[in-house]
Structure formats: C-alpha cells, structure tokens
C-alpha cells in the first residue's frame, strides 16, 4: 500500500488512515520472586499482531485462580476483548476450557475440590484503526488499572483513580455460573504517537496512584533492569508502601514511522496481514497451578516479539528468519539502506535455530566485548553487503565505537548479525530462554538470563527509522513479581 493510497482512505484528512505505527516496549521482564513460580496468580498476555494486551489477577480466595486468569488472558489475546452486553458469550470459551480441565484439578485431599470456581480481575487494551488514526479500547472488570501517558502527562487512568479506593474485594470474572449483572467497563480514546500505556495489577496500580497523589510521579522508577525493579518492589513492600501481592505490568509504547519514510511503501502496518503464532514457542517451562499438569495453558510465552521483514510470509519464525537473512542486499554505497537490509533479528525463543545459534555463541563467549555472532543457516545474501562490524559491548558504544561507524567485513556465504549490547554483560542461560523484545526504530532489547539474576540488555539498531526495518510486530513489556 502506498502512502497515497493510505491518504485516499483517510476521509479527507492528510493524516494517513492506516499509518505506519508501531508499538514498542520500554522494558520487559519476568521476575522470579523467592517463592515458587506456582505462587503467582497473575497472568499477562500480548498478541502483538492484533495489538491486544491483557492482564488478569486471580483472586486469592479462589482455587486455581492463576490458571483461570491465564485462560482469560489467552482468550482475549486469541479472540479479542469482551464487549459490554456480550460478556456471557465471551466467557463461553474460557468457561469450557475451565470445565475441560476439571480432572486436572482433582486431588486426593478433602480440600481439593475440582468443582470450586475461580475468579479473576481483568483488563484488556487493544489498539484499533479508526477514522483518521488509531484508538485505544479498554475492557475491564475489577481493579487492574491502565495508565496512559502522553507527552509526559498522565491523560487517562482507571478504572480506579484513587489509591484509597483499593480493597480486598474487587469485582471479578468467575469460572462458574453467575447471576451477577454484566458490569464490564469499556473505554475508548484516540491514540497518538508517543503514547505510553501501562497496564498494571492492583498492587502496582495502587502504588502508582499513591505516588501520583504525593506529587511524586513514579515513571522513572519503573524503568530499568529487573534487578532494579526487584529491589524497588522489595523495598516498597518492606516499607509498607506497596501491598504484598503479585505485581505484573505491561508497558506499551507507541511510535509512528518518522517523516523520512513518507511516500515509501512502508511495510510496517498496524494490523499486519500475517498472523504469527501466538503460542507454540514457550519461554522457560512453567508449572501449572499447584503443579497441575496444565502445561497447555501455562507454557505459552508471555511475549512473542518478532522483527519481521515485509516481503516474506512469516508462517513460522524460522522461515521468517531465513527469509530475512536471505533478503537481497541493498546497494553498497547507501549505507543507511545497507544496514536496513541487514538488520533483522527474528526471534522465536525455542523454535528459531538462528536465535539458538546466536545464543549459543553468546553463551560460549560469555558476551565478551566484540564477539561476532554468526547465524550459520542464514545463507548468502546480506553478508556480502559489508554489514556493520559486530560488537557486543558491556558499555554503551561511543560514536567512534559504534558499529555503524566501523569498518565491516564478512566472509562470503556467511550471514552475520551484530549485536552491540548496552548495559550489563551477562551469560545467556539457554534453558531459560533469551527472548528478544521491544523492536523499535532504534533498539531491540534482549532479556538475558544471568547466572544469578536476569538482566536486560539493549540492542541498538543503529538509529534506523522504523519504516526501514521491515514489518515490525508489536511487542510489549511484561513484568511480573509475585507476592511473598
């Protein structure tokens, strides 16, 4: 689709109706607490291709609440958000899945009652086209909260707006029959470039609201590594400023392709035509609630970010990777375009051999500076186009050190991908996965599982405009920390 075509559908405005917007992460993480994974009753989900983000918090006083929360989130990601007046119909699928897993919930103990119902709060957000742009739509029940920041200002918060209004009795979606009225709440608001949306479960939402009431906005504190966030939450819990509850949040940042893409047939679309698989490639295996054999619900990845070239059908992540790396080389004398064609980091955590190989190399070399990462199955193509010099650095590269500014070479027939990592050096633990996240105009982050603690590194994509990167699947930050 050309820009002119897009303008033609824009209802008389110069604003493209289906402009090249992307959403990117500002942080991503999954924090392990001191407790077992099975303690968490939160669930988060992101379906990047449809720009659906959902978060749910299982009620403590219900059985298998984490499982139910995950069913709700999965259903939202796969089939869209519920609508008011149609909640019963929307709940049919997760209700059936819940019933089907009844035998898996059964146990010997007298208190193990598979017929007990579970409850969870729910908040979903979806970015959708509307005349002249895009809009956020929210569907919510209970006390998970959304915070929408625009140009540094909080322009939307809800459904709870005061920290004092949180209690232990939120309204919930139940896994069982209910006579209660459909009190799903909905909200739409036009989206704008630069929007940052945070979806948070109640403990964090309450904490954010209290900080805002104290005229001490917490946004800066919410950036940073997992270690930083873990320390922050531990500190705030100890000081009783944060409730001792599971903490999960999703951060979605919205960007639009920069002006220098105007007139190009940008492959980046808000609603790409190709559906990447939502499930299939898990992060680290996760036990089901209370050790139940509920893998099919809980082994799904929390995020499935991908960076996909525009011209290839990303039927499977591996195919996408192959296709991208085989892409025609751009002209040697156009440095910007050269890099554009070169840089494609396609991640599917366990299915992409490319990434696996990358990560094996990372592991072997312990991420020493200036490690070259080879993707041996990438085939010929871009490698011959003299890509930028590979660099893995424990420090942010200076202008002189920046890979884009350094001489490049690559053996014919070998495709190489270079990843300057800004931040802490870390080992990659393959068993736990190493997801790439947050593709944006300028960076991709990699969550590296360290020897002792996970760390986050950022991958600089050399400041390329978003439109040059091929189709970019939206990804979102996911952070969870469980109650202790």
């Amino acid at each position, binding site marked *: 689709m050309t820009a002119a075509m897009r303008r033609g559908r824009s209802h008389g405005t110069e604003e493209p109706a289906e402009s090249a917007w992307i959403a990117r992460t500002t942080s991503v993480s999954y924090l392990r607490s001191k407790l077992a994974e*099975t303690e968490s009753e939160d669930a988060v989900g992101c379906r990047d291709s449809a720009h659906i983000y959902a978060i749910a918090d299982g009620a*403590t006083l219900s059985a*298998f609440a984490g499982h139910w929360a995950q069913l709700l989130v999965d259903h939202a990601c796969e089939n869209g958000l519920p609508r008011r007046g149609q909640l019963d119909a929307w709940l049919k699928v997760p209700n059936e899945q819940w019933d089907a897993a009844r035998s898996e919930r059964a146990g010997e103990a007298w208190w193990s009652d598979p017929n007990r119902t579970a409850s969870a709060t729910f908040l979903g957000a979806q970015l959708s086209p509307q005349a002249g742009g895009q809009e956020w739509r929210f569907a919510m029940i209970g006390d998970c909260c959304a915070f929408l920041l625009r140009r540094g200002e909080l322009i939307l918060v809800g459904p709870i707006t005061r920290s004092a209004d949180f*209690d232990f*009795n939120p309204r919930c979606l139940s896994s069982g029959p209910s006579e209660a009225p459909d009190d799903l709440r909905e909200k739409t608001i036009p989206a704008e470039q630069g929007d940052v949306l945070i979806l948070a479960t109640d403990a964090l939402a309450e904490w954010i609201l209290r900080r805002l009431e104290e005229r001490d906005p917490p946004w800066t504190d919410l950036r940073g590594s997992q270690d930083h966030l873990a320390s922050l939450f531990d500190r705030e819990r100890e000081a009783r400023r944060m*409730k*001792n509850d599971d903490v999960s949040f999703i951060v979605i940042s919205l960007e639009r392709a920069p002006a220098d893409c105007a007139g190009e047939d940008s492959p980046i679309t808000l609603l790409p035509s190709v559906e990447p698989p939502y499930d299939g490639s898990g992060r680290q295996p996760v036990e089901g609630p209370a*050790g139940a054999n509920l893998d099919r619900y809980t082994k799904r990845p929390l995020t499935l970010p991908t960076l996909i070239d525009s011209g290839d059908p990303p039927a499977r992540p591996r195919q996408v990777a192959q296709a991208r790396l085989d892409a025609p080389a751009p002209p040697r004398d156009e440095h910007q375009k050269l890099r554009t064609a070169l840089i494609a980091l396609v991640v599917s955590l366990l299915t992409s051999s490319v990434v696996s190989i990358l990560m094996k190399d990372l592991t072997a070399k312990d991420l020493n500076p200036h490690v070259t990462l080879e993707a041996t199955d990438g085939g010929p193509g871009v490698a011959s186009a003299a890509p930028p010099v590979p660099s893995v650095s424990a420090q942010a590269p200076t202008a002189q050190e920046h890979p884009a500014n350094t001489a490049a070479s690559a053996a014919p027939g070998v495709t190489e991908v270079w990843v300057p990592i800004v931040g802490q050096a870390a080992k990659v633990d393959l068993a736990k996965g190493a997801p790439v996240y947050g593709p944006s105009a300028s960076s991709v982050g990699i969550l590296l599982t360290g020897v002792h603690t996970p760390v986050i590194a950022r991958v600089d994509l050399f400041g390329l405009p978003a439109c040059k990167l091929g189709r970019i699947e939206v990804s979102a930050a996911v952070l969870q920390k469980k109650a202790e």
Partner: protein
Amino acid sequence: MYSEPMSKKRPGCIVVLIDQSGSMSDPFAGSEKQAKDAACALAVNRVLRELVLCCSRGKSISPRCEIGVIGYGGANVASAVGGRLSGKTLVSIADVADSPLRVDRSEARPYPVWIEPKASGGTPMTAAFVLASEWLSEWTARHPDSFPPIVINITDGEPDDEDSVPVVGRRLCQISTSNGAALLLNAHISSTAGNEVLLPDSDVGLPDAYARLLFDLSSVLPDSLRKSAEVQGFATTPSSRGFVYNANVETLVRLLTFGSRPAEGR
C-alpha cells in the same frame, strides 16, 4: 492499620476458643435435636474448614496463617485438637488441613472433623483468655508485622467469672503487631431461641445479659473487615462489632483478609 493481608511471608494467627462446659449439653436455640456442644463443635469444624479453603490454592495449601484451638470446660483449659495435632499450640494451617480426626464424605461436600462435642464442668472463660493471650504474645513476637491475631470465641456465654472476663478480654485485645491490635470476635450459641444477629453495632435487641456481655467483649470491626462484610452483603456501621448470635460462625472467617476475595461479579 489492619491492612496487611495474611500471606506466606506475613502469616496471620487465628485462635478458636471453644466452650466445652456442662451447660453446653443443653439444647441449642430451643432445638430438641441438637445440643449446644454439638452445635459448637460443628461451628469450630466449619471455621477450620473455611480457613483451610481460604488458604487452598487448588492442590496445595499456602501457609497463610497459624491456627490454635483452645477448649475450656471444668478444670480443663488446653489445646482441644486431637489426633496428630494433640497437645500442640499454634500450628500451620497446612498441618490443620492434613490432620482432621476424620473426614465425613457422606455428603456432597467432604466434612472434616477436628473437634468432637464435649461438655463438662464450669465455664472458665477467663482462663481460656489468659492462655490465648500467652499464645498470642508468643506469636506476635515471631510475627511483629503481620495482620494482628484474631481470637474467635464460641460459647453459650455463661462464664463462671463474669467480672474478670472483660478485664482479661481487654488485656488480650492490647496484644499488637505493627499492623494493629488483636481482635476478639464472639459467636454466641444460645439456648434461647431468637433471630440470628450478625455484626450488630449495639446491644439493643440482644435477648439476654450473656449476649450483651459477649457483645461488649467483641472488637469493633476495623474498616478493612467491615468493608469485606459489606461486599458480602452484611449491613454494617462504623460501630459494628465482631459478634454473631445463633448464626453461622463462618461469617466471621469470611471477613478475614487473606487477600483478594472476589466481590459479586460476572
């Protein structure tokens, strides 16, 4: 205050006092079929059952609270649980879950039994409060930042020592954690037939002096418990107390803050 949810890290403490005096063999609320001691044992078993279910995560029990049961009747004021828990003071809810004397599975829902009916001698409520205070003091020293301990006293309200009971009751309610002072909740199982009374804010209308005594002993519900009660459909005021008369004692358990309890919703 009273805001800390009972959790693995900061567990709660619930001590159930069960009146096992001779008067408990009288019929319950005019009933010919059930004596008060049976009604009382049933109430305790239901309370323990409810507590276990509150801490059940599905196939496991999260140790969100420690439980003690003190029986008082005649000269006997001591831990009232039997079987594997016999003689123990405060035990984890996980141990309670695993150690009923028996489980009656004849009904649709399993009914575990920890306490059997028992009735003999006088009603040494003061001694029971003193023993409970000892347990609470020891527990708060171990858990200074938890939700404050809760004592649920199930009785027919005819103490031997009417004068000293309020004194030791008030002393018990001064035992504190950083999150508040101990709460004393009373469930009156009476021989007098009368309407159920739940969480009243005054003693007006209570049928006898024993009920009024127990009302006076009962803690005013802190906001967090009162909010929980309202969500569950109970009418309360800021003066409402943790007192029920001839009513389901589980009501008191359902006010406790183990974490989020879903309000009515779809």
